[in-house]
């Protein structure tokens, strides 16, 4: 199988060949690796690559893979080549995302620092969310004007919930 994988701002061409039980040849942009890969339990996998031992956790959702290794998580978009040609998920989120101020965590709205119609600068604090006894100021990623405020003070919000739209 051949895939296009995206990690950070790089895209890689990857092919996977099953050689034997638990044995794979994986070619990443022409670089070839022979892998002994085992699922140990749940999301935990052991990979032995050229006699180096790695333990990773892998989870998948909608062609986006989260790989956790040595205390850090990495997002990898993986599409098979046909999908990749059609332009599947993971391509990009479009510029629109930056104009949407979303909550970075579940919590409670403590204070709104702007209202509809206000002009905001890049990095200006627009709303304060409290979670885990800490007040956290969320800032605008771009300059603009507040188009809509979707929450009010005291309201509980989920992680990723849209709080404020800019235009």
């Amino acid at each position, binding site marked *: 199988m051949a895939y296009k*994988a995206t*990690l950070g701002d790089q895209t890689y061409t990857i092919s996977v060949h099953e050689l034997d039980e638990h044995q794979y040849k994986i070619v990443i942009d022409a670089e070839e690796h022979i892998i002994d890969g085992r699922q140990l339990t749940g999301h935990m996998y052991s990979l032995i*690559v050229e006699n180096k031992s790695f333990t990773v956790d892998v989870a998948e959702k909608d062609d986006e893979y989260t790989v956790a290794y040595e205390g850090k998580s990495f997002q990898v978009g993986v599409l098979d080549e046909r999908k990749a040609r059609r332009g599947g998920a993971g391509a990009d989120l479009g510029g629109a995302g930056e104009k949407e101020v979303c909550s970075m*965590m579940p919590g409670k709205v403590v204070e709104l620092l702007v209202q509809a119609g206000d002009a905001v600068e890049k990095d200006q604090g627009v709303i304060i969310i409290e979670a*885990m*006894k*800490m007040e956290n100021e969320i800032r605008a990623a771009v300059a603009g004007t507040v188009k809509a405020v979707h929450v009010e003070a005291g309201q509980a919000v989920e*992680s990723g919930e849209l709080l404020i739209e800019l235009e």
Partner: protein
Amino acid sequence: MFKRVLIANRGEIAVRVIRACRELGIETVAVYSDADRSALHVQYADHAYPIGPAPSSESYLVIEKILDVAQQSGADAIHPGYGFLSERAPFSRACSEAGITFIGPQPEAIEKMGDKVTARAIMQEANVPVVPGTDVLGDENEVIAAAEKIGFPVMFKASAGGGGKGMRLVEKKEDALSALRGVRSEAQSSFGDDRMYMEKFVEKPRHVEVQVLGDMHGNIIHLYERECSLQRRHQKVIEESPSTAINQDVREQMGKVAVEAAKAVNYVGAGTVEFLVDAQQNFYFLEMNTRIQVEHPITELVTGVDLVKAQIEIATGEPLAIQQPAVQQRGWAIECRIYAEDPARDFFPSPGKIQILRTPGGYGVRDDSGVYEGWEVPIHYDPMISKLCAYGRTRDEAIQRMLRALQEYTVEGIITNIPFHRWALTHPRFVSGDLDTGFIPQEYRGLPEEEDHLRHEIILVAAALAAYHKDKELAQSVSSPQGSPGNVSAWRATGWREGVR
């Protein structure tokens, strides 16, 4: 000994106290808010009672509810842990009035030490060195005059303050008035008391505190110091014992002074006398915490004394089981507080479901956890999920062991500050012991980018293999819809991803 102890707390400290009780043959009573029905401390306790909604102001902080449960459950003592009701004199008093032993100091000691200005005065009386400063100050003119007399920089402090709230550094005269207004309004809103005083600002201060234990028979001992200079927003992040800030002479002297401080309020129970230490190893009384401290485990590791058990034994009226000459520091211990927060994004909190939890083990590693795999860390309480301690014969061994333990520690589903700890423990200033309370703001500029070709390959290999198996599984399920899914490799992972951001 008590028959049944209620723990008026949650999280790791509730588990810590339950463990101590169990080892003493005492039954335990947990209390839980609606957000904590499935919390670890509820599982560990023998008895468990609900005490109301998630906000602590409606549950863990409501004295009447706690006392009601104590009476219903037949508890004969209450351990308050830290935070919540642990330093509320009215609670200590209400316990006594209800005929239930409060495992902690007498209300008078809590009150005296709880008011910073009173505490300062008592300490001066007892010849405990304090930072040059003032009593409670009145109007603006008086404040300005006092500041000029002491000499800038100075600290404005709320008289009722604590935990980093109601404090402001004032570097020069022009800033004094706005700082004064700020401190007063913060003090009023946070503590309902806008009185303030002023102290000389100690430059490059180090935070060193001394653990004390006092019994009901007038014996007070100290168990040496802990250094807690690594702080962010006045919250401790990494602590160690012994401290690199002081030499052996100062250490012994500081221990004696801490005992004098405790004696000045006839202290009973476990307490901590906090000092500021300057570059010349001068030390000044800062405040006394009249409860068990978050970072007590490192003292236990270095001295071999179980402080929570000591608290309980003291509360039963037993004399101290250990005398001062028998208290010896051996080796070195470090604590890293594991917080559910994102060190790559300004330490934003990261509550949520812990999808994967693997804790470190082996020699010299101690994990005091308040969570378990599968639990959802609630948004309502502080973000500390665990305290990881490493012990070594030398400081270097303790650091290396902690780094090894951090490497073994796996938490997925929520983000933790584990990478921050690795950064801190390998920082040349930390390694050489060159710390002060400004270390993190001065040095931390986000996590270092590790551009590692091998790492990238492993990540890509893992993702590609998982994708390959997903495709294979799909292909098989299409070609043989009746096929047993058990025959297919389960590389395809589900579920955990839900919690990943």
